[in-house]
């Protein structure tokens, strides 16, 4: 089931690549800046991870801007997990990432797909017998997102994200996110810096 869902994320990436690369409705690189916040939910089950922990809640925040052939994003997601087995501690996870993907604008609707690369930082509520309280590992993700412009620069977005963390026992998690975003013209100094 998980594989089928992630295929659904992969497909838009490939489809959007061609359309977005032709520059349909795409603004110039770094021309605008979009700030997004949202709440995310872990929607897959059945992984080894879920034998020990359950998802409590998660918040996501990011900046994105048009880039060559699409957009780039920088952001972070905070997830909180509670144990389901008494022998393991609760923990908070912070995913810090950079991403890129093609973007397509069709009127008031904007479609994005892409990948993310970043760090999955985990802070545990209790020390282990080795005294370690945190862990950090490489994270890759696939993303599909639809954003609808409501009024002015304000928009509503829905996204699905599949993340893969390269721990020895792999973490494969699928998230759904709903949130608000606001798009504004990039300040001149920021455009100068980024270009």
């Amino acid at each position, binding site marked *: 089931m998980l594989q089928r869902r992630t295929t659904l994320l992969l497909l838009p990436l490939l489809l959007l690549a061609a359309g977005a*690369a032709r520059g349909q409705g795409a603004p110039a690189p770094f021309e605008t800046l979009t700030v997004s916040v949202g709440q995310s939910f872990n929607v897959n089950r059945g992984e080894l991870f879920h034998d020990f922990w359950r998802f409590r809640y998660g918040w996501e925040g990011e900046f994105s801007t048009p880039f060559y052939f699409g957009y780039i994003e920088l952001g972070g997601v905070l997830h909180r997990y509670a144990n389901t087995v008494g022998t393991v501690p609760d923990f908070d996870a912070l995913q810090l990432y950079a991403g890129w993907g093609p973007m397509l604008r069709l009127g008031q609707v904007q479609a994005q797909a892409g990948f993310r690369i970043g760090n999955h930082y985990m802070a545990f509520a209790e020390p282990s017998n080795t005294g370690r309280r945190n862990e950090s590992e490489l994270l890759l993700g696939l993303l599909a997102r639809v954003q609808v412009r409501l009024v002015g620069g304000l928009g509503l977005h829905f996204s699905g994200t599949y993340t893969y963390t390269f721990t020895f026992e792999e973490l494969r998690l699928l998230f759904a996110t709903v949130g608000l975003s606001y798009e504004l013209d990039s300040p001149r100094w920021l455009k100068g810096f980024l270009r």
Partner: protein
Amino acid sequence: MDARTGRRKAFRRFFPFLRSPLSALRSPQLALLLIAGLLPLTAWGQVEPLLAPGRAGVQVLTAAEIERAGARRLSDLFALLDGWHAYSVDEYTWYATAPGLGLMQQQEWMLLVDGQPVDVEALGVQNINLLPLHPLQLDSVVVYSVPGMHEGRMAASGALHLYTRKPPRGATARGSFSAGNEVGDPGPFLYTDRATPNIDRVGPDALGEASLAMGEGDLRASVKHSEHHVTDQQLRQRAYYQYEWAPGRRRPRLRLDAPALLLRTDGALGRHTLFAGHSRLEDLRFFDPLGLEIPTLHLFSHAGLGGDFAPGRPTGLGYRAGYTVTNLDEEPTRDHLAYDWREDRLSGHLEGRLGNRFIGAALGFGFDRVEVRTGYPVEEPSLFLSHAVGRLTLNAVRGWSQQFSAQVTHLEAERSFKGVMETTVRPTAWQTIAFTGAYAWEPFAERHDQWYWTRQGYAFLTDAGSSPALPGRFTARRSLTGDLAWMLHPAPEVWLTLTGHFRQLQGLTLDLYRYTYTALPVLGAEHFNATTQVRSGQAGRLAGGSANLRLRPLPQLEVQAHLTHLQAFTHDAAFRTVWAQQPATLASLSARYVPVPRFSLFARFRYVTSTDWQGFEPAAAQSARRFRASTPALTRLDLAAQKAFWGERLRALVAVRNALDAPFRTHPAGSVSRLTFFVQLEVDLNVGRGRR
């Protein structure tokens, strides 16, 4: 299985992301497809024009290539060299060899910095990372995979010539920081019965540099810092076994601090360079004759002055002088192992040349003085080698050039001779034929390696409980090599070079190690016990070929493919054993893509065939195959993306090494590395007038 099913399976094998979306995340094919799909869509960016291959067997790495590949240590350059193989036990100290110009045991390729030879070798190990320079300080690296004369020294085993960047006018401050993470941490499963050992971070590696350029000169001061953690379980267990814990002492790791100073003038009186630096490395070097890591404080200091009073002109005078001190100091170890070794090297060379555009001749004289200081009673601890070199260049006939170089070295009652002949013929505008032939005859004492000093009385191995079996007599080494290259330039931005190689190596002194395995109840530690047999007078022949294709199909894309294959024949048993430790075939495919200005993508795929290490067979059997006496064929894909910001003052690079996440081990006792992710930031502040 019918043909159609077979085709479908093959298709799915090549495009695994169609079969499993999980594998898509780790699929290089998907990345290549996406890049290929985007290629024709823009012509905004541009890769630098291809450099025409000037000489056969010579590769030039530019600063842009080095930067975009994400090199953060000098040893990362080995992954970019065509036909060179490098292996490492700890992934910090790399043993490298040019194609067939020597065996891995003989680290004899020459290292030069801005025209000055720098000896970083110590007891048979040549660790390029000891050099107090960072890859980002380099303007270019010229790689010689054929014998040749460089700055008055004959390099029969190849050479790496590092040219540093000329700073921009005015005052400049630069800094770079990189750190990485290797995958495979336990993550939250640390608290479960699925817990695995933690994998430490990689690095950090950092550089700070300040420079001042005005008039005809420039001055640069820099400091390099590097850390390398022993995170591989095998290495960790061996290292912890020898490591003597003390209050306040850190856990075993390699740590390098290396300041350097570079002063250069370039004006009416010629070009002159002063290069001085000091490296302090807390080392955990694997010492083959003992089969274990010995914690050592490795100190390296070098000061060199070199120059030319008429650079670039056929008539002129050049000189160089250098002083190097290598010190292997004691670190606390369980078995009280200490090399007690210091080697001072003083060298000088003066060379005059005369000629015009048709004919040129050069004659030079110089010396090398080596002195060993150790508590062991070494007989004749100093050596004085004087040498004379000559070179004759003929360009009298259009489309044909000829060069002869020779060096005679005098060491007490013995003399050595080395000579190189280079012929280049250009019959048409689109093809060049080049031949490099070399002959070398050198007495054993000229190499003055660890076995020479052991024979002279350096008894570290005996003190450490090992008694290497040395031959009754060490023979003089002879080598005869030939490289015939056909360089084709069939179309603009396309270069194809086909080369045939032949090597006849005789009189070699080779080490044969035999490792047994011991598991210790203490801390779950384990270690090898080694017996060493040194054989002299060994011989073997190698023959093979290489193909190199470089092309720029689009202004924004450069692609390079390389293949080298060498086969041993008519050889002694010891030669075969040692040669089997090197892969017979090496292949690489690189791409640099600059879709838009100030943004680049880099990919390099490498493949090497398997290697056999006969000496590890007993350890493999005793450890129930925990160790292997071979390394399998290795594939490796390295990726990097770089973006410049703020008018190129700030550069950010993300790199993924071993993107296929295939276990990568180049030595049976070596660490296994997996996918590693790096981030590198570089700041370049030119507060003066000029900009890079």
